[in-house]
């Protein structure tokens, strides 16, 4: 049975999509069958894998509202073992359309149910908000990965997120576990970064991944080329870090 890992944070710009795309690519490079689910209406994970959104017939929106089967939506990527459920702006409409449905927070869980037999890892890139789409990402997940950008406000956002997760685990998804908190955009030359990392170790010590994602120009530039960083330079610091993170994920007990 495949494992569903949702990458969540209500704060934007913390490295969710960068992590979703590059971790998916690193797991696929390790010959794991991986499905990346873009659940953010901005569709950045979709364009980050070089998919032209205008040429798609259907997207995750159609799947989540019940208008399409997965096989109609799943898109190939440039990595053999990595497939994508793409997203476009139309996904915004799903929030409104699902609101009256009794299973509104379980649409993604149900939609992914049959895919767990096909893919070893299903990664969900959630939107930067506490919305119905994010609750779907959390309800569908076995594990959560919470990025923590090395910035003061991000520390509070992670504390809030953990409280939200505790509520949702109790109310909606008892099997939910936090895979880990991932420090991102770390710059050892900045004192504030070092302080945030230290505070994170004090507050979340047992939840932090060993891997720390550095602030790195390769990671920033990769989306412009529509490729994960490891396809551009497999030896870059960004690539190495996501390989290390993939190793930690592969060692998760499930």
């Amino acid at each position: 049975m495949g494992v569903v890992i949702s990458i969540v944070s209500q704060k934007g710009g913390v490295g969710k999509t960068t992590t979703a795309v590059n971790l998916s690519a690193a797991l696929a490079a390790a010959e794991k069958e991986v499905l990346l689910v873009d659940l953010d209406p901005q569709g950045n994970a979709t364009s980050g894998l070089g998919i032209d959104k205008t040429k798609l017939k259907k997207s995750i929106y159609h799947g989540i509202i019940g208008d399409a089967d997965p096989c109609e939506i799943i898109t190939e990527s440039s990595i053999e073992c990595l497939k994508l459920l793409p997203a476009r702006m139309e996904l915004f409409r799903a929030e409104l359309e699902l609101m009256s449905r009794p299973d509104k927070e379980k649409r993604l869980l149900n939609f992914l149910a049959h895919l767990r037999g096909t893919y070893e890892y299903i990664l969900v890139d959630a939107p930067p908000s506490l919305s119905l789409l994010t609750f779907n990402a959390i309800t569908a997940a076995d594990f959560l990965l919470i990025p923590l950008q090395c910035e003061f406000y991000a520390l509070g956002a992670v504390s809030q997120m953990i409280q939200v997760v505790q509520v949702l685990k109790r109310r909606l998804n008892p099997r939910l576990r936090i895979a880990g908190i991932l420090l991102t955009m770390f710059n050892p030359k900045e004192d504030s970064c070092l302080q945030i990392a230290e505070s994170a170790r004090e507050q979340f010590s047992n939840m932090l991944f060993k891997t720390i994602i550095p602030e790195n120009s390769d990671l920033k530039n990769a989306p412009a080329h529509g490729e994960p960083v490891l396809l551009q330079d497999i030896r870059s610091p960004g690539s190495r870090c996501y390989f290390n993170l993939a190793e930690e994920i592969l060692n998760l007990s499930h």
Partner: protein
Amino acid sequence: MKIANPEIIRKGEQEFIKAIASNLDWDVIKEIFRKEHNLELEEAVKYKDAKIKICDNRIAFSLDFDVKVRLSVQLDRDGNYISVESPGVVHKSSKGEDEHLEGEGLSDVDSEELEASAGNVERQIETEELLSDEYEKALEEIGSIDTN
């Protein structure tokens, strides 16, 4: 190696299934619902979805419909559940004939079949209410995280 356009096959299948759905004998289907599930359909039935599948080693057409069913939940003054009633609820009489129950006669029903059916309906209602409830409660709790 594809030898035909899957989109054309899918569309053809859908049209085929819709043709079957539009020619169903609804009197017979309503009778099946009444006899097998003790349910009387109230209003128009809306076609929702269909699939071709294998059932008992035979090709079968699985048709989904949205239908409206009126159910009355019976409980006593202490709040204990007694039964669920549909307008078309039936039970086997001692002579083995089907008989409509009316009004207060329902409490006399002691058929295992009816209880099992009512139990399923009750569980379904409970599950749906629980889901909605838990979601609302989760939102309420999350909304008070910074205030408590």
